[in-house]
């Protein structure tokens, strides 16, 4: 996952549902570490639609 920092309100909702606890919610940024498998769950609930998922075809 990638976060559009212009939209993200740094609420941390995405991190609370991540099954692999990959998301770090800092004061200035929100990002996933290497363990992210792009499952897309976090994107489903982001209240402002800031999460982008890279789909591997």
């Amino acid at each position, binding site marked *: 996952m990638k976060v559009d920092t212009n939209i993200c309100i740094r609420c941390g*909702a995405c991190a609370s*549902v991540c099954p692999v606890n990959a998301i*770090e*919610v800092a*004061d200035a940024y929100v990002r996933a570490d290497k363990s992210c498998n792009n499952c897309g769950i976090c994107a489903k*609930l982001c209240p*402002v639609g800031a999460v982008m998922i890279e789909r591997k075809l």
Partner: protein
Amino acid sequence: MSARAATRAGAEVLLLDKRRELGVPVQCGEALAEEPLLDLGIKPNPRWIAGEVNAVRLISPSGLEVSIAEKKAVHGKVGFILDRKVFDKHLAMLAAKEGADVMVGTLVDGLLMDGKKIAGVKASSFDGRMEVRAKVVIAADGVVSRVARWAGVNTTLKLVDIESCAQFQMVGIDIKSPEVMEYYFGSKITPGGYAWVFPKGRDMANVGIGILSSRMQRPAIDYLKDFVNSMPGLKKGRVIEINGGGVPVGGPIPKTFKDNLLIVGDAARQVNALTGGGIDSAMRAGNIAGEVAAKAVASGDVSEKKLKEYEKRWREQMGKRFKRYLKAKEVLLSMSDEELDRLAKALQGVEFEKISLTDMLKVFMKVSPKLMWKLKGLM
């Protein structure tokens, strides 16, 4: 609250928060009853009170209004709409005044372990990386709740157990009655949740929406824009702040303690599943956690055997309530728009003064016998 309580009880306390400014960004509708403040000895202060409320108005999908006048309404007694940007700082200040050390702008990014034992936290701050050794770690890291997960406690939420919320702080809007909190229901406006208008005076309010994440088709903020546009009194206003967040509505985690660790507030999912209110319970549980942790440290035994007193005490105080709210939420989720409208219609003109959830349910049952079976077990 934990920091204040633990310092008071004689412990040496360090309060870490990743935020450089406490309370910012706001992730909250900011409604709080007066009762928890009184119980916890916190004097209401005009610096962090943006509005005072004494009634609740529920608006059904077709627009029928049910008014619940004053006191003991859904959120408890007469309450406040806070300014959490000031309130959160005020709570930290209370802890600091008692003697707690406070470090803001400090992100906890891992646990410090002595073998299998939790021995503190790792963090990064203005001063670079640091390790803090502690006998007890209190994880009060909000909805994100990573600390507990690092310790092996599963706090990961399922999409059915979290409301996705977006909120505008708006000015230049029409507020009919600044002392009334409004809740709007209906699957069109907000699937599996509600929209709210919490007044901050005559022409300003927190206008927000919460949607069950599993039922969400678009980002919550899009539903919020639709809601605002559908209300002429709001549409004419201006948005001066956009915020939001996730509200856990699946009830508390089954176990909130471990050797050297206590889990508090949103991190432990101690939230009223029906209203989404969690300030009250986070403060109460936080206070208990601080007291128990300090006592354990003083006794030299910080094992889970000693720390489980925390869970025992908060469950005694709030456990039953959490269960009932959870059940009530499930009933609400199961109701169709037609059922909600029928209920609202039946409740027109019903005298609602001095109502509690129990009394309210009794009235619901009377007016809508069909709901009886759904509501059973709630009383």
